[in-house]
């Protein structure tokens, strides 16, 4: 293949990465924005979502779409419930002190990961996609008779990958509408802006915290359900989305949703493209150093505004 078709392929793979990453990172960003909690266990909620999707899809016989849709509904709910419980039992009792909550979520990371290892085991297991048609992509080439349409071998995507991108976009728009247009979203934003004032006005801040923590974890789980037919479910799969979500949330500006989505597209695409043409490890070295430097020299993020 020439450079062009390669690039198209890299952009397509990058878009799938970016879509899933945006969902995961928005979950992390919401939790940080509203609760001021850096949730190190976020990647493990992603992993739990994938494992739960496998377990749910297993229990449905028949067409794979039935099991997948059940997983799409129940896996995020289940993971959200677990996270809500963890918030009420652990984080709430720490009074959301920033350093203590980080240490506690590191503990939660190991607990979730190792319990999964004990029950689900060390194997990677696939979930069949609900539909998976191979779609070839045409490419233009100068031939004998001028511009001609060719179908390069290997230049293709699947209907499922396109559906992942579309689904992520729909979910993000729905989330944005929920936050900016509904009463629940208003209460959430009020808590984000001034927790004590919100409490003084009689808003159930403790419940907002618990539900936002559940919502953040649920979004990570939802992203995992979407990606699990492409990647397999494995107990260590939470590490990479955690690191990438951190990178995205910080570059996008802590707590800013639009910035997070923009950064997810930037990081997901560039990670996909750099990984195709260079070494994935080099891509990671560059992005981790970029994050450190952004935090040191521009703490409000690349897309954020400096604090007043």
């Amino acid at each position: 293949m020439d450079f062009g078709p390669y690039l198209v392929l890299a952009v397509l793979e990058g878009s799938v990465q970016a879509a899933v990453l945006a969902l995961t990172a928005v979950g992390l960003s919401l939790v940080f924005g509203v609760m001021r909690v850096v949730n190190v266990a976020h990647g493990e909620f992603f992993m739990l979502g994938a494992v739960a999707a496998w377990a749910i899809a297993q229990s449905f016989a028949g067409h794979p779409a039935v099991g997948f849709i059940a997983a799409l509904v129940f896996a995020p709910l289940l993971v959200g419930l677990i996270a809500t419980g963890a918030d009420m039992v652990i984080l709430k009792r720490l009074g959301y002190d920033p350093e203590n909550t980080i240490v506690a979520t590191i503990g939660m990371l190991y607990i979730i990961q190792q319990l999964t290892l004990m029950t689900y085991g060390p194997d990677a297991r696939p979930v069949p996609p609900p539909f998976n048609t191979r779609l070839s992509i045409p490419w233009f080439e100068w031939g004998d008779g001028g511009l001609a349409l060719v179908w390069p071998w290997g230049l293709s995507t699947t209907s499922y990958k396109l559906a992942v991108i579309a689904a992520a976009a729909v979910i993000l728009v729905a989330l944005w509408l929920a936050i900016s247009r509904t009463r629940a979203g208003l209460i959430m934003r009020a808590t984000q802006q001034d927790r004590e004032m919100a409490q003084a006005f009689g808003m159930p801040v403790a419940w907002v915290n618990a539900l936002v923590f559940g919502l953040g974890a649920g979004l990570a789980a939802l992203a995992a359900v979407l990606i699990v037919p492409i990647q397999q479910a494995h107990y260590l799969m939470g590490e990479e989305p955690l690191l990438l979500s951190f990178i995205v949330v910080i570059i996008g500006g802590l707590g800013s949703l639009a910035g997070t989505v923009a950064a997810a597209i930037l990081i997901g695409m560039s990670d996909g493209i750099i990984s195709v043409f260079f070494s994935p490890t080099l891509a990671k070295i560059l992005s981790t150093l970029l994050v450190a430097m952004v935090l040191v020299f521009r703490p409000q993020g690349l897309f954020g505004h400096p604090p007043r």
Partner: protein
Amino acid sequence: MSARSRTLALHGAVVAAILALHFILPDYHHGILARTMVLAVYAMAYNVMFGYTGLLSLGHALFFAAGMYGMGLSSIHLGFSPGPAIVCGVAAAFAVSLIVGILALRTSGVALMIVTLMFAQAGWYLVLYFGEYTRGDEGFVIPRAARMLAGFDLADASNRYIAALVLFAFGLVVTLKAVESRFGRVLVAIRENEERARMLGYDVFRYKLGAVVLSGTLSGLAGACYGILFGYVGATFASVQYSILPLLWVLLGGASTVLGPFVGTYFMTYLIDISSAYTTAYMLVAGVVLVVLTLFARQGIMGEVRRRLIPWLP
């Protein structure tokens, strides 16, 4: 007894007790104690920053690995003998901690934790990226011939134990000296109230940088010695797990106590050792201990001892 001689007597007694254990302990526990002493020096180094200065780093594996790889790479590729190789490792850790300190200390709190984590991740990826020299995850073995220090064969269990004890005693002396000095008092003042320390005229940045460099360099010494004593250098020691472990050890043993890091390391090593006999998921214990400590026992073991029994414990 004066406070000074009391402190000396206590820590001297601990070192003497460990020396006595050398002649008593069965092989297996003898080996564990030797390993614990080296890792305890790493934990003590972490405590200088976390316990005394109040700076929570999630990237100390970078300093530990800088020492270890500075030693290992110069030994394997440049043919350095153990002495110069360890110096090389310590120098590498000094340089890395100085650079990381200057950059990371522009931030504080949560941002500092993430910046240190990211630097450590970049370091870990660097080790993997230069797999040609570092052999990546697989790591490399330091040959027995390169582990002869001043006529002692460090591959021998008995020599190794004594060498680890010497290192441990050195770590104790350095942290005690640092903590009891004017420098250490200022660090505690910064931890308690940074603005007040600044207002009293202390250059807070310089003191914090001093704490990072002391902590990083001592971590590097522990890393270099770990590599030479146990003859293995690998990327695991640069991974995030080795940044979390010293935090766990210090929290368990008691932050801002001199003996706490050793006690925490020793307890945790046995907890993990015992649980790994039952399950492959032995890190579960680490997770549970972290959550329980943050919820119920912020002081750790030696912190409780200080509160209830020995109020003068340094």
